[in-house]
C-alpha cells in the first residue's frame, strides 16, 4: 500500500511540477510586484496582444521636423526610434526650435531636449487654451492654434496672441507600407505585467477552462499534502517512533 502511494505521490508531483512552478513564481511575483518594480510595467508583443484579442492599430502617419521623427499608435510614441512612454495621447504635431523640440497633443505640450530627454510636460493650465488643434513654428516661437485663436511663445512660459501668417504648421506625413509595418512592430500594444501574472496564476490566461485546470492543480496539491503526510507519519507510527 505504501509503495503504491509513494509511486503515485511521485507521479503526481512530477506531472504537476511545471504547473506548480508557474503558480509559485507568478504568486511570488504578484506578492512582491512593487519591490520587483513590476508596477505599471507593460509587456509588448504582437502575439500576446493577439492572444488577448487586442487589435493593434498601425501608425497611419508620422510627424517630421528637421532632425526628429515621431510615430504614434496604441498609446505609445516612437520618438527618433525610441519608445517615449506608455498611455500617451495621440500627437497633433511636432515642431523643432534651436535646441529643443515640442510635441503637442490635444491637452498638453511635451518639451524635449534634442537628445529626447523630457524637459517639461505642460498641461492645460500652462497652455493659453485647449484643446490644441495644431502646432507650428514662426520666427523661433512655438505657435498653437486653438478654438479661441492662435497663440505664440518663445519659452512656453508666457503666451501671446499671434497671427497665422508665416507660421509653418506641423502636418502629418503618410507612411509607406513597409514603414507602417516596421513602426507597427515597435509600437505593439502592451499588457500590464501584473495583469499577465494574475491571468497566469489564476489560469485565465489559458481561457475558459484555465481556472478549472488550476482548480484541479489545487486538488492535486491537497492529494500530495495528504499522501506526503501519510508517507511521513505511517512508517513512524508503525515503527513506534511517535
Amino acid at each position, binding site marked *: 500500500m505504501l509503495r503504491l502511494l509513494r509511486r503515485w505521490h511521485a507521479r503526481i508531483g512530477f506531472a504537476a511540477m511545471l504547473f506548480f512552478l508557474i503558480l509559485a513564481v507568478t504568486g511570488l511575483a504578484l506578492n512582491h510586484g512593487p519591490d520587483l518594480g513590476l508596477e*505599471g510595467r507593460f509587456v509588448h508583443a504582437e502575439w500576446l496582444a493577439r492572444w*488577448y484579442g*487586442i487589435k493593434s492599430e498601425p501608425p497611419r502617419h508620422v510627424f517630421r521636423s528637421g532632425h526628429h521623427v515621431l510615430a504614434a499608435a496604441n498609446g505609445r510614441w516612437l520618438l527618433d526610434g525610441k519608445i517615449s512612454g506608455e*498611455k500617451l495621447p495621440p500627437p497633433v504635431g511636432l515642431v523643432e526650435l534651436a535646441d529643443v523640440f515640442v510635441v503637442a497633443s490635444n491637452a498638453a505640450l511635451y518639451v524635449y531636449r534634442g537628445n529626447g*530627454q523630457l524637459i*517639461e510636460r505642460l498641461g492645460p493650465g500652462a497652455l493659453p487654451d485647449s484643446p490644441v488643434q495644431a502646432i507650428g513654428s514662426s520666427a523661433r516661437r512655438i505657435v498653437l492654434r486653438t478654438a479661441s485663436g492662435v497663440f505664440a511663445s518663445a519659452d512656453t512660459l508666457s503666451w501671446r496672441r499671434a497671427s497665422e501668417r508665416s507660421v509653418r504648421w506641423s502636418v502629418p506625413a503618410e507612411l509607406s507600407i513597409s514603414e507602417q509595418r516596421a513602426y507597427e512592430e515597435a509600437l505593439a500594444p502592451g*499588457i500590464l505585467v501584473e*495583469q499577465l501574472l494574475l491571468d497566469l496564476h489564476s489560469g485565465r490566461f489559458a481561457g*475558459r477552462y484555465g481556472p478549472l485546470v488550476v482548480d484541479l492543480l489545487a486538488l492535486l496539491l491537497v492529494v500530495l499534502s495528504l499522501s506526503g503526510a501519510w508517507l511521513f507519519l505511517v512508517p513512524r507510527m508503525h515503527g513506534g517512533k511517535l
Partner: protein
Amino acid sequence: MSWRPRRSLALFMLALGAVAAGLARGEIYQEPDAFVAEVFGSKPAPKVLWLTRDIQAQAAAILGHPPAQLRQRYWSDSHRSVWILEEIGKEELITAGFVVVDGRIDHVRVLVYRESRGQEVRTPSFLKQFKEAKLALGDRLDRGIDGIAGATLSVAAIERMARLALFFDRIGRK
C-alpha cells in the same frame, strides 16, 4: 475564440476604458490654475527651476526614481512658493498642490486624482498632518504621517511630493 481568455479580456478592456477615461479627465477636485490663483489672489507669472544633475540626484533620492522632467515650474512671492507636483500612486498620476511658507508646508491639496482607489488622501483630516511640516535630516519630513488603509501607495506618493516641494523650495530660494 471559446478557448481565449474572454473574461480576462473583458476586464482588461474595461480597465483600458477606465484608464482612457481617467487619462482624459481624472477626478479633478480643483484646477491647478485655480489653486495658484487662490493662494496669490491672482495667478502670477510662473518661475522655473532647472533640475541640474545634482538636483536631479537629490530629487531621485527623495522620489525613489529619477524625476520625470528637467524643468519644474512654480509660483512664488517673498515668502511663499507654490508647487504643483505629480507622482504615481499605484498606476496613475496624482496631481497635488503644495504651499510652502518659510520652509514649512502651509497647506496641501489633492487637485487631480486618477487612481481607482485611495481617494481618501484628499480628505482634510489626512492632509492637515502636513501642516507646518519641514525637512529634517536626510530630506525626510520632521514628522511621521499616519497612513490610510487601502491607500498606502497614494499616501506614500503624497509624502514623497511633500518632501520634494520642500526640497525644491529650499533650492528655489538659494
